[in-house]
């Protein structure tokens, strides 16, 4: 009967299966056992993840560890109780004062627009950009570095894009801010305004191929059609349907709720300092 079986199938059936590398799977998330009085559990605020994005851990499973993340969050909260880190977004104009051994008065203040932000936990950072004396400048700050004396938000607003790195190739007036800029008024409880300014870029060459980045906050790039044709080839329209790619890049809702529950005792303090900084904005701009 064996002769009836095709030779290829016969061999594949009796051959040993290839040795596979079995990677450990990520088990489904199980919520932390909360305290007995679950009635006191506050719901997850809708803006928690946008205001405090660095409290969410890096979602890469190989680097996750619950205990380390908890210790890291404890350190972050401790640091925040010493120096208030205000709410800010990409596009907000900020002033940062740091201790600097080489500066004449041992502190250094820089004003600029936040063009990018990243990092989780104690590694969180942001980039400020300004043009001083017709010279474009960028400084990166680590949010939890003990050298930081003070962080002020002079104008709290968002932009249309998630990164403003194209300001490097924009005309300098779009990233010029006076160093003695006054904090601007924001009414109590008002939503964060979105600045829909359209930036004009310099002619090519650029730092990146901006026509491929689907930018909202720039004027017409004025490129020949072939650039857009090439950009079309590099588009990845299927990525928005890749549900698992999306999932692997996020922290699930239940886990965010647990993280929030863990820092909930300190949340009032965080929120009050956040509100205070907003009120201070309002007060200083009143006179």
């Amino acid at each position, binding site marked *: 009967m064996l002769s009836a079986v095709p030779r290829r199938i016969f061999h594949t059936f009796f051959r040993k299966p290839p040795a596979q590398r079995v990677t450990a799977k990520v088990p489904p998330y199980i919520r932390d056992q909360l305290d007995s009085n679950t009635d006191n559990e506050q719901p997850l605020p809708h803006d928690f993840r946008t205001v405090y994005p660095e409290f969410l851990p890096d979602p890469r499973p190989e680097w996750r560890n619950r205990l380390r993340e908890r210790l890291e969050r404890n350190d972050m909260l401790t640091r925040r109780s010493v120096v208030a880190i205000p709410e800010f977004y990409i596009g907000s104009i900020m002033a940062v004062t740091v201790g600097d051994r080489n500066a004449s008065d041992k502190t250094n203040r820089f004003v600029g627009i936040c063009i990018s932000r990243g990092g989780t936990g104690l590694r969180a950072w942001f980039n400020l950009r300004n043009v001083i004396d017709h*010279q*474009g*400048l960028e*400084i990166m700050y680590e949010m939890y570095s003990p050298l930081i004396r003070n962080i002020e938000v002079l104008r709290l607003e968002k932009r249309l894009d998630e990164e403003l790195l194209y300001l490097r190739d924009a005309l300098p007036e779009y990233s010029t801010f006076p160093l003695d800029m006054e904090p601007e008024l924001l009414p109590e409880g008002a939503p964060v305004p979105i600045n829909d300014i359209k930036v004009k870029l*310099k002619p090519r060459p650029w730092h990146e191929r901006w026509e491929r980045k689907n930018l909202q906050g720039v004027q017409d790039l004025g490129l020949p059609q072939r650039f857009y044709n090439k950009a079309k080839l590099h588009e990845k329209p299927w990525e928005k349907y890749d549900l698992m790619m999306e999932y692997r890049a996020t922290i699930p809702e239940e886990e965010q709720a647990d993280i929030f529950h863990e820092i909930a005792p300190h949340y009032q303090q965080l929120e009050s300092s956040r509100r205070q900084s907003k009120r201070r904005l309002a007060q200083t701009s009143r006179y």
Partner: protein
Amino acid sequence: MERWGASMKEIERAISPPHEQKKSKPKEGLTGAKERWTEAMNVVPAILRAARCEGSRLHTSSSLRHIQKQTRLRVVDNSELGKSAMLEGRPPRCIHVYNKKGIGRTGDKVLVAIKGQKKQAILTGCHQDQFPLMPKFDSNNIVLVDENGSPLGTRIHVPIPTFLRKKLTEMSRPKGVDYTKILAIATRFV
């Protein structure tokens, strides 16, 4: 490019090195265009560099934006040599970096070729990515110095990093070169 009143060919000829210019005699009327061009260069040097790269279809800087040999730099002091080189649209090139890596960082000394001369200079700002709290500049800035470390100009018209205070003091020798005079002619620190 028409808005500057010069065609692409003219511009290329204007900014090409002198020995190439000798081969083809410049036509009449080019001098006017060249002047207009240098004027434009004075206003927006970045646009000129952009136009040049677009014209030659060649990117000479690496993606890491290292300062190494052949990197073009920008003179930010008011020395006659530096000013005229920048105005002519012939920015100096780095021909040596005085450190062991061959990659210049803020505060390093470099040797530059500027208008047919060799001059030493100090890097006062770099375009490549920097460590936290160290400013990253939009251009690679240098200040020309002589053998004793004294700057050729009398003023620096862009900000320089405070880190230079420490670095230049360390580089100076008690009875030798003294680079700290650069700090004295700076207008602003960041």
